[in-house]
């Protein structure tokens, strides 16, 4: 009997040690430098608040930490959409002026691999900026760093909350450099195919309400127009 108890205790200790190793693994830390920061091209940024109550509409299955907003919005409770969040929000430029309406669909991805430090969300943005045009942004987002450095510490905190300064790139693909794929639809953006990067800046998180002070930024690279080569004199 004592051997069986010893084996079971050993297994529990082994599993816990393995999970702790995964959690503290420095090899899975979040990328904090945007691949677009070294670009020579113009980069436009759209800023938004990632707090549900700051959005025009935020909805999910109604059972998650973050409650749908406004409270009477239809919930996505059907089995095929219950792992999906949908948000419509006003996107602002770097001067905090409203410039676009953005709709974001975020679905938990089956490509999530906890072993590799990948908590993946497949997301798509549908953006319309009056006077500029429309965009579609496809991206794979990795929330592992966000979970590890904000959500888990909030659960471990006696106050059931987290406060601090956290900045991280959440876009992890599908581009080779970990960038999002951006497709232009109309206006200045028509026929555009370029890269984008989304990042989060968190200051407060509550176990009860989810993000309390979290801002998001979507950066889109605008390739320079191809100029005709100057003919030799």
């Amino acid at each position, binding site marked *: 009997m*004592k*051997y069986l108890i*010893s*084996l*079971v*205790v*050993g*297994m529990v*200790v*082994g*599993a*816990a*040690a*393995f999970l702790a190793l*995964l959690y503290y693994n420095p090899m899975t830390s979040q990328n904090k430098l945007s691949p677009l920061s070294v670009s020579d091209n113009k980069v436009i940024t759209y800023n938004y608040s990632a707090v549900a109550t700051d959005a*025009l*509409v935020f909805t999910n299955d109604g059972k998650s930490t973050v409650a749908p907003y*406004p409270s*009477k*919005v*239809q919930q996505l409770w*059907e089995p*095929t*959409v*219950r*792992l*999906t969040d*949908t948000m*419509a929000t*006003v996107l602002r430029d770097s001067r905090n002026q*409203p*410039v676009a*309406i953005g*709709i974001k*669909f975020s*679905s*938990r*991805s*089956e490509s*999530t691999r*906890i*072993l590799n430090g990948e908590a993946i969300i*497949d997301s*798509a943005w*549908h953006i*319309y900026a*009056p*006077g*500029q*045009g*429309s965009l*579609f942004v*496809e991206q794979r987002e990795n929330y592992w760093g966000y979970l590890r450095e904000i959500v888990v510490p909030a659960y471990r905190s006696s106050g059931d909350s987290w406060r601090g300064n956290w900045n991280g790139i959440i876009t992890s693909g*599908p581009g080779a450099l970990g960038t999002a*794929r951006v*497709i232009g*639809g*109309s*206006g*200045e953006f028509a026929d555009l195919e370029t890269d984008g990067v989304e990042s989060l800046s968190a200051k407060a998180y509550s176990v009860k309400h989810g993000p309390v002070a979290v801002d998001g930024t979507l950066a889109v690279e605008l390739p320079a127009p191809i100029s005709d080569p100057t003919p030799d004199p």
Partner: protein
Amino acid sequence: MFKTFIVGILLGVAVAAAALHYFPAVNQSREQSLIIVHPNRGNSETFHVNIPMDRVMTGAPSQKEPLPVGLEWPVDPRFADTRAELFKIRNGKDAVVGVASRIAANDVSSGEIVEWVLHLPARGSAYVIMQAEPLEDGYRTGNLAAGTREFSPLVGRVSEQWVADTSGAEDAPVGRIELTTAFVARKVEEE
């Protein structure tokens, strides 16, 4: 006994690693894709939105009854000609399979636009740019501009049509927006 404890630790590590490797952390629920193959005409798939029950949001300026209740559409004049809607979308068996956004707008830069993004969590997303002017028989057609995952290698057309309900049933919707997709692989199209 100490040896048994050490074996237990190794076993615990192996079991935890195997569990994380073999058991999916996320398992999206799926509905059968109801694709119709036409003789010599490629294939099509029809989605629909039951109105009003599948309407999640109607964002437009100066609405008397905003949907959802409590929605505060931005008063900035630049959004005066913008209408953004969110829907649940259903397949041919009337089962919800995803969510969709529809943006209709008009401005100097883009002219009049009508666009859809269909987001099917288990399959991917499709970005569809429609012709602004509907055809005479009430259809509006458009092209798949981009797709993700399952829709990534595809090209094709999408039609949008309003179909009023004629059943007269008490709980029947007022009508439905029918979206018919006709996609083929990009390679096939190029050949």
